[in-house]
C-alpha cells in the first residue's frame, strides 16, 4: 500500500498542518501520512529576488521520497517563485511525484488583513489539491469553480471550491486507480 505524504519544509506551524491534513483527507477520501520534517530550503534561495525557487525545493524532495510514497506534498512558509513567474502559490511535477505549496501568500496578513486561520486552511487545502491534481496529470481547468482552475490572485483562489469539477474528478480518480494498479 502506497501513501500520499505531507512534509513540512522549514518552520511551519504544526497546528495549521494538522488541520490541513484533516481537511485534505476529507477531499481525497483517504488518510494522508505525515513525513519527517524537512530542513529549511536555503539551497533554493534567490537573493536577488528574496524568494525561493520552487523547482529546486521540489528537486530536493524528489530525491528523498519515502519508499511507500505515492505522492508527496511539501508545505512551506517561504515565498516561492519560478525563473519566469514573479511568484507562485505552489508548484508540482506534472505527472510526477512531488507537489509544493507555500503558506506565504495565502495568509491574510500578507495583504495587511487580520489573521484568519480557517480561511488560510481552506486556501492551503485548495492549493494542495490543485498541485496534487497536476501530479496525477491534470491540467488547468476552464471551470472557475473547479480546484484545478489556474489562480493568479488570492481572489481567484477564494472563488474556487476545494474539490474537482465532475470531469477533473473522474480524471483524478482514474489516474489514481491506474497508479495504484501499476504499483501492485
Amino acid at each position, binding site marked *: 500500500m502506497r501513501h500520499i505524504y505531507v512534509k513540512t519544509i522549514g518552520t511551519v506551524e504544526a497546528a495549521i498542518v494538522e488541520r490541513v491534513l484533516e481537511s485534505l483527507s476529507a477531499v481525497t477520501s483517504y488518510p494522508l501520512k505525515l513525513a519527517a520534517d524537512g530542513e529549511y530550503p536555503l539551497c533554493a534561495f534567490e537573493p536577488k*529576488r528574496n524568494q525561493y525557487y520552487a*523547482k529546486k525545493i521540489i528537486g530536493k524532495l524528489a530525491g528523498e521520497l519515502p519508499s511507500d510514497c505515492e505522492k508527496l506534498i511539501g508545505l512551506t512558509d517561504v515565498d516561492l*517563485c*519560478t*525563473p*519566469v*513567474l*514573479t*511568484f*507562485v502559490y505552489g508548484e*508540482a511535477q*506534472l505527472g510526477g511525484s512531488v507537489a509544493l505549496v507555500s503558506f506565504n501568500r495565502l495568509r491574510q496578513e500578507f495583504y495587511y488583513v487580520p489573521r484568519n486561520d480557517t480561511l488560510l486552511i481552506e486556501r492551503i487545502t485548495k492549493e494542495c489539491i490543485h498541485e496534487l491534481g*497536476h501530479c496525477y496529470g491534470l*491540467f*488547468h481547468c476552464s471551470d472557475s469553480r473547479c480546484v484545478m482552475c*489556474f489562480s*493568479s*490572485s488570492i481572489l481567484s483562489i477564494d472563488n474556487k471550491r476545494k474539490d474537482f469539477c465532475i470531469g477533473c474528478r473522474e480524471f483524478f480518480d482514474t489516474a489514481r486507480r491506474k497508479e495504484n494498479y501499476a504499483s501492485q
Partner: protein
Amino acid sequence: MHRSRILVVDDEEIMRSSLSDWLKEDGYDVVAVEDGYKALDKIKSEEWDLAVVDLKMPKMDGIELLEKVNQMRPRLPVIIITAYATIDSAVMAMKEGAADYIVKPFNPEEISRVIGKLVEHQRLLKENILLRRALAKRFRFQDLIGKSPKMLRVIEMIKTVAPTKSTVLIRGESGTGKELVARAIHELGPRKKLPFIAAACGAIPESLLEAELFGYEKGAFTGAVSQHKGWIEIADKGTLFLDEIGDISPKTQIDLLRFLQEREFRRIGGKAPISIDIRIIAATNKHLEDMIAQGEFREDLYYRLNVITIEVPPLRERKEDIPILVGHFLEKYNLDTGKTIEGISEHAMKAIMEYDWPGNIRQLENAIEHAVVIADDVEIQQENLPQQFTVQGQKWHEIKPDVPLEVIERDHILQVLDANHWHIKKAASILGINRVTLYNKIKKYKLRRSKGE
C-alpha cells in the same frame, strides 16, 4: 479537443524549462528551442498557435526572428519576453508586429491573461476560416456561388436539364457567369468526362469563326496548309458552348442552323458530311427577340437554340449573394497574393452593397482583386476599392432616379475610358467586362474621346 501549440524560444535552459512546465500545466502543447534558427525550422514545418520569444539571444535576436516569422507565418502571434526591458526595445518589438512585450519574470495574472487572449483569438481565427469554408461550400454549386432565390432557381434548372440532351440557351448580362452555368450543366451531365469546348463567337472575326467552328480541309483557302478540325468536331460526344451567339453573322447563322437540324456538317473545302453527337449550349447577353424583329437574328435558329432557357440574374438582383461572393474572392486573392486580409470594413461593404454592378460578378471580382492588392490592413477599407467607390462612387448616389440605366452605363464607360486615356484593356478590367464587350459598348453608344483626351 485540440490543444493549442506554443513554441518557446529562449537561450537559457532554466527559462525554457520553467516556462514550458508552467504552460504545460495550463494544458498547452509546448515545444522549447534554444535559438532562432531552430525556431524557424519548427515554424516552417509545424503548425503553431503562438510563439513566445526571448529578446536577447545569441545568433539571432528576438526582433530578427520576429521579422522572419512575420514573413513566413504572418498570422502567428509572437510575444517578446525579456529580462532587460527598455522603451526602445518595446517600441521596436511592437512596431515589428509583436503581439505583446512582457518583462521576465512575469506576473502570473498578466502572462495568463495575455496568452489566454492570444490563444483564444487564434482559435476564433481558425474557427472563422473553417466556418467560411463550410459556408462557401454550403452556398456553392459547382463554381456557382449564391443562396438568393433567383440563383437557387438557376441551380435547380441546371440540375433538371443537365441529364438531358436538350439544347440550352443561357441568357444574362455580361459578367453574370453564363459560362459557369454552361460548365455546370456539362459537369453534371452524362458527358462530363468528354470535352467541353467554349467557343467565344463574339471575340473572333466573322471570317475566322466559320473556320474555327467547322474546321477546314487542306487547301480550302489560302493559308489552309493542313487539315484542321473545328470546335464542333473536337467537341464530339461532349458539349459545345457557343458564347455570345447574338454576335454571329447571318452566314454563320445559316451554317449553324443547318448543323443543328441535321447534326452533321462539312469542313470548309470538304465534301463528305461528318456526323457529330454533341450537346449545344448557347449564351447571349443580347435581346434576341428584338434582333429577330430587326432582322439581325434568324427566327428559325432562335427556336432551335431556345429549347430550354436559363436566365442568369444580374448581380443587382441578387445582392444577398454579395457577402458570400466577396468572401470567396477575398480567399481566392489572399491565396494569389499571399496576403492575409481577414475581412472588409462596414463602410466598404455598404458601398459594395449599394452599388449597381453593371459589370456583374466579373466586376465584383476585379474590385476585390484591386482592393486586396492595394490594402495594407487586415481589413479592406472603402478607399482600397476601385475609383467608382471612392470619389466617383459618390456621384452614383447623386443620380436622379428617373435616369435610364443605359445613360448611366454610357456615362460611366466614357468616364472610365477618359480616366484611363482610352487604354481599352485597363478600362475593361476596371469595368469588369472583357475587351470585346467594351468595344461593342463603345460602338453601341458611339463613344468618342473627350476633348483634350
